[in-house]
């Protein structure tokens, strides 16, 4: 029997592959223990820089666009004759090769930072160069995601967004992390990419490189050095699953035909290619992208053009647009933020309106103008609504701007508690489970250690969701979910069971949620919801639901 490690399965699927550990960032170097020989250390440093330069050149050949340009500039930095002179000068003072490289690069880094602006951004390229060079000299794994040509299981303590930007889904077959939780970045990215993932898996970072493992993202089990028959069985299950996902299509519905709309979360209108995904529309179109990285507010015409592009791509389908959700944590030069050092609880979303008259109206006008020229069924909703009064004020303004369907996000517990009253003043509701968790549990979403509190299986969160959804059912007002919860194929059944009529998620999650729904009746969803709501904690809720579904 092979050894097994057990964690929390956060993205279903089965994969087999060799373990590759992600290199840790290179920290400060300890003081050298002895003086180095100047000539020898210079040679060592030069050789390491040359190897790093070649590695960068090799990657540049495979890259395109901006990535290729950055790699080209970086390889030129590694070959910079003035840098090599500086390294030799540092080595001449008795510094060993890693310390000489460190000191020489630090000198240039300070100059770049002093130059400011664009130049300062290159400091990050230099930091990366330093880390790569020192990793080579000290025989440490390269920091970041390893550069490999064959498929592997990526193992890390935890994964940050910067670590996952260039994950290649053709090479990474599963993610396993020692830490992290159900709402960690690892879980989010794995679901978005459709990769099996296990988090909170003690002992995984101690597993030897290249050890073959089976990762089961449903049960959370990681099998080390499996026997050939175990591998064959896992591969059969993976193939059957892939076939099932491949063959599923069309609108979301349960086994007995109850409709549950399957929609996409989009971060910008540049994702118009998402229109090719087999989905019923967009359940959450964020609009921050239009406003970020700008010194002035985009004009109405600019906004119309951007929205119109996306609406054209989704012609005939539903698109739910969320109005601007910025605040003290994402400040904009042209938006007056107001005071406060607790950004999540300050002036954000809807609350900015008072200080920034016209901002919301201009956006609503732009969305209405773009919608008028399209075939889309366009809905608008406001973020950060805390009271029924605020919800009514928003829907009034949206209707006045010509929007037939106006609703709000439920992400503040006070609004969920007044769900019955809320349904009288809105045309629909969308529950943002991520922020609703943050505000219900008084737990900052950005604090990784609070991951357990932010688990979307927390019974208290599910109770607020159920309360809102049931109020919607009673009033015939559609209630959807557009947070992380919707992308979990088991939790999706619980959400359908409490009465949610639509689920919106990243495109990678959609096929498995569709398959999951198609396998059960509405009554079964209701039973699962009862089980999850009755559980004493999130872990039990998840485990009991998974056990029920076998």
């Amino acid at each position, binding site marked *: 029997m092979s050894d097994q490690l057990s964690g929390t399965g956060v993205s279903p699927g089965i994969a087999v592959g060799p373990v590759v550990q992600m290199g840790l960032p290179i920290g400060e170097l300890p003081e050298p223990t002895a003086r180095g020989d100047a000539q020898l250390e210079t040679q060592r440093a030069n050789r390491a820089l040359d190897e790093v330069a070649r590695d960068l050149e090799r990657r540049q050949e495979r890259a395109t666009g901006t990535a290729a340009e950055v790699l080209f500039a970086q390889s*030129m930095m590694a070959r*910079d004759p003035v840098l090599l002179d500086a390294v030799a000068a540092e080595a001449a003072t008795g510094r060993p090769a890693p310390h000489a490289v460190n000191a020489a690069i630090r000198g240039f880094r300070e100059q770049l930072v002093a130059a400011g602006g*664009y130049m300062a951004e290159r400091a990050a390229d230099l930091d990366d160069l330093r880390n790569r060079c020192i990793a080579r000299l000290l025989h440490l794994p390269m920091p970041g995601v390893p550069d490999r040509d064959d498929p592997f299981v990526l193992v890390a303590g935890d994964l940050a967004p910067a670590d996952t930007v260039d994950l290649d889904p053709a090479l990474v077959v599963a993610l396993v992390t020692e830490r992290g939780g159900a709402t960690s970045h690892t879980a989010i990215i794995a679901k978005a990419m459709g990769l099996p993932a296990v988090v909170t898996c003690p002992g995984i970072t101690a597993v030897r490189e290249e050890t073959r493992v089976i990762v089961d993202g449903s049960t959370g089990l990681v099998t080390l050095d499996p026997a050939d028959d175990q591998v064959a069985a896992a591969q059969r299950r993976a193939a059957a699953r892939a076939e099932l996902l491949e063959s599923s299509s069309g609108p979301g519905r349960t086994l007995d035909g109850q409709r549950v709309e399957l929609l996409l979360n989009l971060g910008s209108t540049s994702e118009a290619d998402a229109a090719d995904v087999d989905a019923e529309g967009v359940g959450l179109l964020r609009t921050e992208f239009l406003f970020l990285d700008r010194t002035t507010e985009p004009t109405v015409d600019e906004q119309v053009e951007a929205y119109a592009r996306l609406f054209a791509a989704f012609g005939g389908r539903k698109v739910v647009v969320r109005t601007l959700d910025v605040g003290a944590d994402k400040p904009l030069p042209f938006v007056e933020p107001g005071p406060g050092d607790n950004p999540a609880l300050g002036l954000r979303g809807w609350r900015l309106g008072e200080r920034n008259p016209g901002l919301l109206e201009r956006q609503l006008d732009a969305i209405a103008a773009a919608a008028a020229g399209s075939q889309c069924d366009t809905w608008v909703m406001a973020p950060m609504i805390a009271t029924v009064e605020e919800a009514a004020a928003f829907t009034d303004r949206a209707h006045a701007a010509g929007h037939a369907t106006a609703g709000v996000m439920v992400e503040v517990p006070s609004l969920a508690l007044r769900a019955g009253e809320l349904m009288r003043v809105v045309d629909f509701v969308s529950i943002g489970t991520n922020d609703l968790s943050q505000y219900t549990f008084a737990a900052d979403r950005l604090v990784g250690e609070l991951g357990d509190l932010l688990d979307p299986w927390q019974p208290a969160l599910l109770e607020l969701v159920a309360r809102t959804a049931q109020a919607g059912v009673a009033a015939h007002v559609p209630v959807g979910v557009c947070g992380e919860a919707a992308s979990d194929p088991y939790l999706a059944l619980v959400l359908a069971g409490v009465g949610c009529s639509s689920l919106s998620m990243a495109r990678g999650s959609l096929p498995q949620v569709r398959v999951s729904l198609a396998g059960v009746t509405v009554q079964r969803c209701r039973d699962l919801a009862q089980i999850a709501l009755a559980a004493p904690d999130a872990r039990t809720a998840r485990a009991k639901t998974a056990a029920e579904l076998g």
Partner: protein
Amino acid sequence: MAMETSAGPVTNDVVVGSRVGLHARPAALVAQAAAAQPVIVQIAKDGAPVQARSVLSLISLGAKCGDTVTLSAEGDGAPAAVAALAELIARDLDAE
């Protein structure tokens, strides 16, 4: 007949053409071209000159689009080397 070497240093003022200034890609292209020259070409912007073949030194100049930089070189091939780099720096390398 006077040889090039006896003519002293060749200098040339040039206005940076790249929209983002001499950073990243434009600087790397200039450094690559400078390294291919038979002489060391120096480049300055309101201060002490640095080697044009050093991408890090080029970036550290902080030269923005429209800024004037001064190229200089001495020895055989200096005029051609300075002219080649001046032509490169004046172009919008980011757009290419």
